Structures are given as C-alpha cells and as structure tokens.
C-alpha cells in the first residue's frame, strides 16, 4: 500500500471529521472566554443542522440553509445568554435544558413538516455545499509529493471546511488584536475590571454568546449540508461534547483548539480505517477496543503531556456586584 496514498486518505478523513469539531470548539471558545460556560454546543449544532436542512430544501439553496442555521443557533444562544447573563441562572443547567429542548423539538417539527420520520428530505446537489476544486488541482496532480498533497488534501473540500480552518487565525486575530477581543478576554477574567472601565459586562457577554451562536450554526450547517444531504435526528451524536473536550484540551486558545480537533479527528479516522484489520504486534483487536481507542489515547495524552488547563477566571460565575 503506497504510504503517501494512505497518509493522504487518512489526512482527508481527518479533515472532514475535524471540521465540525473546530467550528463548535471555536464557538465554545468565544462564550467561555467571555465567562459564559456552555455545554449546550451539542443542542445548538443540532438546531442549526435542522434549520439548515429544512430551509435549504425549501429554498433549494445551501446559502439560505446556512443563513437559517446561523439564525436559529443564535436564537438558542440568546436563550442561554438570557438565562445565564441576564437572569444569572446556572450556566450548566441552562445548557442541559437547551440540549433537551432541541433534541425534542427538531424531531417533532421535522415530522410535522416533512413526514419523513426524523429526517428532512434528501437535498439535491444545488442545495448542498459541494466540494470545491482549487485552481490547478488537476494540473499539479502529476508533480511528485506536493502534487497529490495539493490536489487531494488541500483541494477538494466543502467551502465550510475552508471557512472552519480560516476561522482559526481569524479567531486568534480577533481575540488578541482587536478591541473586541481584548474586552472579551477581560470580561471572562475579571468582569469588575471591565465594568469599572466603563464597558457593559452584560453586552460584552451577550456578544460572546452570539459569536458562539454563529459558529455553532455553521457547524450544524456543515453536518446537514456538506457532510450529509439533509438533517437526521440526533445527527450530532455527541460531537458537541467532544468539541467541549477539545476546547479544554487546548486551554481555550484558538490555534491549539485546531490541533486538538485535528487530533480527535485523526484518532477517529484511524479507528475507522483500521477496524477489523489486524494491527502490527497486537494483531486483530475487538471492534469495541478500536472504537474506544480515540478516547483512551486522549486520556493518555492529556495525563501525559498536556499540563493543567486553567479556565477563564470568571467562567461559569454570573456577574453579581451587589450580593
């Protein structure tokens, strides 16, 4: 088996699997850096995926679907924001609640509108994000090494994938190079300082939450419009929690977030690829072990190499100045 070939295949699969994780984890980064924790990523993604599938089908346009996903996901974020910022409620409870509500309502609405049982109608090409071939991909393919890498790895992904990877430096830039970023980080560390500097803590946090909504929406749209042709019930299948883990793994920093997600993606791709095929030394391992492998390795890596992860100081705590 040509090694380069194998590498390329694994790498492609890795990228596909990481894309939604990167988007969701970056989404989490925005709220949690603003001091609002969110285990509702799962729900927002699912809600987004559903909206995307629905609208894309009706409007026969991927863009419309994407837009809808973002809008719905933002609305859900605002609910979370209202509960945890305005009402100073418990952020974890609010997140759990949103996951429940979305899980239930998507199925109900989907069935009510399309009668296809827990899924939206399969989307036509036009209503999905197609894989884009970058210029010269074919031409360059012949070139040894870089040719295939460019043609098969860099090129040929859905627009949202490029968007996801683009968002990594963008997020970094926003966070560390803009006024918004400065204030966002500050409000997650010490809201008192932000408040006394004459900035509205509440509004800052809402903005963080909204950013989260946008990215979760895109993540959802990726699931139903790029990775798939439509929404199916519970299609996030726990990705929200993995994204959360990646976020912590990366200590709430954009670039590491990308690498953490790529790692999860790779381990997953690896497990998929080598299921049932005997491995060197160990031989044929039970499917279940193979499927647990990514998680086991994560734990080992975490315990072995990644030091303590210190969350934003004010994270999870509602801002109350008059107790």
């Amino acid at each position, binding site marked *: 088996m040509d090694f380069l070939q194998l590498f390329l*295949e694994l790498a492609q*699969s890795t990228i*596909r*699997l990481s894309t*939604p994780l990167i988007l969701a984890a970056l989404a989490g980064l925005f709220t949690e850096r603003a001091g609002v924790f969110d285990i509702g990523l799962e729900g927002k993604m699912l809600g987004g995926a559903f909206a995307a599938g629905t609208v894309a089908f009706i409007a026969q346009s991927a863009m419309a679907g994407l837009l809808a996903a973002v809008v719905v996901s933002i609305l859900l974020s605002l609910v979370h924001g209202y509960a945890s910022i305005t009402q100073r409620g418990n952020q974890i409870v609010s997140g759990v609640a949103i996951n429940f509500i979305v899980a239930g309502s998507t*199925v109900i609405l989907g*069935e009510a509108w399309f009668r*296809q*049982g*827990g*899924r939206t109608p*399969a989307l036509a090409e036009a209503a999905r994000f197609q894989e884009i071939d970058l210029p010269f991909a074919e031409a360059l393919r012949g070139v040894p090494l870089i040719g295939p890498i460019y043609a098969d790895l860099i090129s040929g992904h859905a627009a949202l994938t490029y968007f996801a990877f683009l968002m990594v430096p963008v997020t970094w830039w926003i966070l560390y190079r803009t006024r918004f970023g400065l204030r966002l980080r500050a409000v997650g560390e010490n809201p008192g300082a932000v408040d006394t500097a004459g900035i509205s803590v509440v509004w800052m946090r809402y903005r963080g939450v909204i950013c989260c909504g946008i990215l979760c929406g895109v993540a959802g749209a990726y*699931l139903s419009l790029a*990775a*798939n*042709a*439509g929404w*199916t*019930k*519970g*299609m996030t*299948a*726990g*990705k929200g929690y993995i994204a959360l883990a990646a976020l912590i793994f990366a200590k709430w920093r954009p670039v590491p977030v990308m690498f953490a997600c790529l790692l999860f993606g790779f381990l*997953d*791709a690896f497990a*998929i*690829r080598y*299921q*049932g095929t005997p491995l060197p030394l160990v031989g044929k391992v039970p*499917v*279940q072990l193979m*499927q*647990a492998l990514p998680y086991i390795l994560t734990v080992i890596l975490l315990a072995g190499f990644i030091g303590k992860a210190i969350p934003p100081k004010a994270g999870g705590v509602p801002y109350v100045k008059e107790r």
Partner: protein
Amino acid sequence: ADIKPAIIYDLGGKFDKSFNEAAYNGAEKFKAETGIGYRDFEIANDAQREQALRRFAGDGNNPIVMAGFSWAATLEKIATEYPDTKFAIIDMVVDKPNVRSVVFKEEEGGWLAGILAGMASKTKTVSFVGGMDIPLIHKFACGYIGGAKSTGPEVKVLEAYTGTTPDAWNDPVKGAEIAKSQFDQGSDVVYHAAGGTGVGVLQAAADAGKLGIGVDSNQNGLHPGKVLTSMLKRVDVAVYDAFKTANDGTFEPGINVLGLKEDGVGVAIDENNASLITDEMKAAIEKAKADIIAGTVTVHDYMSDENCPY
C-alpha cells in the same frame, strides 16, 4: 366490531430508518386499506416496556405487535396475564399459546444482496457498514459476506461498525466517513444495516459515484440509479399480516420463520435500479433463490453459533 390493533416500537423509535419504521409502514398500510385505526407507542426507556404493554393489553387493544427482540422477556410475562389477547413479536421467539413470533432469515436476504454486490463490483472489493456490533447485525453481515464471496474467490469484503452508544444508529456523518474509508480501500459497493447512520452511507456512495445497498425497506428511491438494491426485510408485511389475520379472525399463534421462501426477505428491484441490474445478475439471484428454497444451498445463520464461517 372492528379490532383494536396496536403496535409498540423499540427504543430506536418509530422513525429509526430501520425495522421500527418498517413496522410503522405495515401498520399504516393496514390502516389505509381497512380504514381501521391503530394505537402505537414509542417507549423512552426499558422500564416502560412492561408498563406500555400491560397498559395496551389492559385497554383491550388486540392484537398487539411488538417490534424488536428486546420485547421477549416482557412479553413472556404479559402474554400469560392476558391469555385472550393476541400478541405478535418480531425478531424473537416467544413460546406462548397466544403469541405469534415472527423471525426473519436476514442471512438469506443478505446472501442475495451479497451476490449482486459481488457481481456489480469492478474492484472485486465490497463492504458492509453495521450500526452497532450486535448479533442481529452480524446476521445481516454474515449472509452478505457469504453471498459476495460465492460470486468468486477473489472477492474481498470489508466490514465495519459505527459505534457502541445508541448514537451509533443516528450518526450519518460517521456512516459516510466509514463508507469513504472503505472506498479508499477499494470497495465500490457498500451495504448498510445501520438505521439512520445508513442514510449517510448511501449518501456517501452516491456522492462518490459508488453503489450503495439499502436495508429493511426499499431504499432504492433515496438515490435513484445509485443504490444497487435494498435487502428487504418485510417487517411491514409481518405487521400487516398480524393485523389483517386478526381482523379476519384467522390470526395464528406460533412461530413464523420468514425467509426467501415466504417472501419475508429479498432484494428490491424496481425502476430506480433497473439500469444497474444486468440480466446475468437477475439470473444469478433467481438461481440462488431457487437453490436456497430447494435447500441445496443453506446460508449459515450467525445466531446458530455466533460466528460467520465465510
């Protein structure tokens, strides 16, 4: 007076893109034909099995159909409590005087699907995507593998399972990813028995210009011309029959084993995939079908010894 039929689904829920949904379709068909309504219920956890079943029996629903092998233990109990109620259970045998047990020879259907796959494959590599690694799914897989390999010794069959949590049945993204990885490994026909996950598998095949094979109900229509065939498991028929016979008072308890002979399993050939099925494929499956019915070929039943010789 009309009968009061009822059906209770398994945890997967009515719309699992798999046998629960097939069962639902059967009930709907009955309703459409006879105009007789029916009650149905989706349990949310195991504790509700007994509750729901007893509740339905208590309310005088009759017959009551249960989709899924997990119902066996509960039914054992309730069937004796309500001797006058007719019960039917799918995918499992419960030996009671008022229970009809319907089990399928998935392996036989799988065998035919395997033959088509083997013959349609140019790379001589075909693959299978299961939802969770459980016996029932192995039953599907084993027949398929056998069938595929029966078309030539050189045929290779890849086999993979989606996951170990209930999500494994609702993860089209991962389903698609598994399929793609199998294509990378040379497969050009992929057969799924993975409920909602399969939606992703068939999609991936369609996108990659490979062939998919549907399961349970006829999924050829999902991607016309890109789904080689669907391995039919006529759960819908089983449910329909239970209702129908009860309605004409001909409901027979006992064990129904539905295989090719009984048309309980099979492969779907319709306008959606006509273009993909060559005449010699047709011939091949007709022959295989005849052999199996005649008993000259027996397809190994995974459940008999929980392993697959092929």
